């Protein structure tokens, strides 16, 4: 449904995201996890066609983000980091406006507004001015705005940022509810949020993807292993089997680019052993590296930030 390939973005000389590559399947709920400044908002703005990428490509439902942005905007609902509200507008008027420019047919607008109000539990405040609502309600109005045209894909940028714990719980419930019949990408710098809502996590740090995994896989691999990445020219089909036989190797998997991810026991320093095996078997060593940013570091950062919020 969404496929991103080598996506890159420069702000002036500064590179905000570097060669992001990932896929999102239909109906999936994917979490974008990373500390502040990791490039989450940038990626989401690019996918919503608000800003263009500097390089790489991305396709959503087969539509290209450069060529067919208008088509993409029709099927995406986007909640930016700051809800795009007009502070002087009444909630229901605001949603009517959003429905209008999101191309909801004229005779369906009333219906769409009612449905969005209902879904986001906003019926009681529909006559209030958005600028005077609490942050939690504003966030929900932002969500309602993203839902108004019944998009197939929802992109939510830090939907729980700045909310108090009760509001956070409400928004999470709402997102869970919405995820039943939609593809959702949501970003967060809070680990538990992701664990509660998402099936799959993309961890991003300083503009690079550090890991893509299901939640169970991620936590499992974290506890006991460190990861070494190996790329070779030949022998792809036998390598997995042979590598797994090395003492201290927990598991070997191959990613989309043909590189092998070797999970090793903590502190086993298997670089020498792996290199020797590669050379002995004449696979043609291309690259062997320890994964530069340790997942644990990122996780540590994320979990410590989370404690402040969860209080």
């Amino acid at each position, binding site marked *: 449904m969404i496929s991103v390939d080598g996506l890159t973005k420069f*702000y*002036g000389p500064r590179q905000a995201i570097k060669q992001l590559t990932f896929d999102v399947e239909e109906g999936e709920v994917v979490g974008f996890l990373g500390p502040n400044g990791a490039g989450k908002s940038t990626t989401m703005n690019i996918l*919503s*066609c*608000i*800003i*263009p990428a500097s390089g790489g490509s991305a396709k959503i439902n087969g539509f290209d983000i450069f060529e067919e942005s*208008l*088509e993409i*905007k*029709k099927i*995406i609902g*986007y909640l*930016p980091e*700051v*809800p*795009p*509200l*007009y*502070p*002087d*507008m009444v909630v229901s*008027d605001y949603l009517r*406006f*959003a429905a*209008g*420019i*999101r*191309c909801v047919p004229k005779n369906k607008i009333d219906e769409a507004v009612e449905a969005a109000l209902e879904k986001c539990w906003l019926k009681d405040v529909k006559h209030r001015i958005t600028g005077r609502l609490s942050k939690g309600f504003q966030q929900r109005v932002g969500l309602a*705005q993203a839902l108004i045209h019944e998009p197939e894909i929802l992109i939510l940028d830090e939907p729980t940022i700045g909310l108090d714990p009760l509001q956070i719980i409400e928004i999470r419930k709402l997102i869970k509810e919405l995820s039943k019949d939609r593809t959702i990408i949501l970003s967060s710098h809070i680990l538990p949020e992701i664990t509660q809502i998402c099936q799959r996590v993309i961890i991003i740090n300083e503009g690079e993807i550090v890991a893509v995994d299901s939640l169970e896989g991620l936590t499992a691999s974290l506890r006991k292993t460190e990861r070494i990445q190996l790329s070779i020219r030949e022998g792809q089909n036998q390598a997995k089997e042979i590598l797994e036989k090395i003492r201290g190797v927990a598991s070997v998997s191959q990613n989309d680019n043909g590189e092998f991810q070797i999970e090793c026991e903590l502190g086993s320093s298997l670089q020498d052993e792996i290199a020797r095996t590669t050379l002995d078997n004449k696979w043609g060593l291309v690259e062997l590296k320890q994964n530069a940013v340790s997942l644990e570091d990122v996780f540590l950062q994320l979990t410590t930030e989370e404690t402040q919020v969860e209080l």
Partner: protein
Amino acid sequence: MRSTFIIAFRDLSSFLKSPIFYVLTAVFLILFNYIFFNILNFFSFQSMQAAQMQGQMGAMGLNLNDMVVQPSLHNMGVILLLMIPLITMRSFSEEKKNKSVNLLLSSPVQLHEIVIGKFLACFLVVATMISLTLISIGLLFYVGEPELGPIATSYLGMLLMASCYISVGVLASSLTDNQIVAAVMSFGFTLFMWIIGWGAQAAGSDFGDLLKYLSLIDHLDPFFKGMFDVADFAYYLSVILFGLFLTHRTLDSNRWR
């Protein structure tokens, strides 16, 4: 096209909800009418004097169009020069500031539809203000016999020049998220476009002609005299379109930064 109207309508209702519109309209009408009635008063004093001195001259040399409508509208042009930047300054600056522009940008709307919508909203506000002055002008039909034709073309010229101000104002507003900065830029630029012709004398003949041609105010005179000149119309139209085009380019290049 539908999106354009939706955006214009939203901006318009936001104007009507804010005190800015009412304060500006009130101040505008007070200033205009003060000027207008003083000019009218001076006119009646003059025509009385003229009638006393030479019976026929009064009826012949003095007429309401030239001596009341034209100078009043000239002054209106100055008041609008001061006020329109205050109307246009919100267009994009405010949206950028409170990030609501992201709603527009993430919607299936093309940039030019947004730009035209913003322009249209300001135009309707200004057109409302200008047409409210017709009430005072209408009074002239009770006290004398002004010609309708020149009044109509004068107002058309006024609307065209005001649209140029608006176009420049919308452009300024797309350049910054600070409303004051936007207002000052558009005021400075439109005022400059007014007085640019003053340099004609100093500059040589060719360049001087160009400066004169660029001046916003010089193209207004034919309209005031009751003429509709396609060249002047085309001048105003191209200023408006050029301003909107630059606004479009600005918004587009903002995305790339």
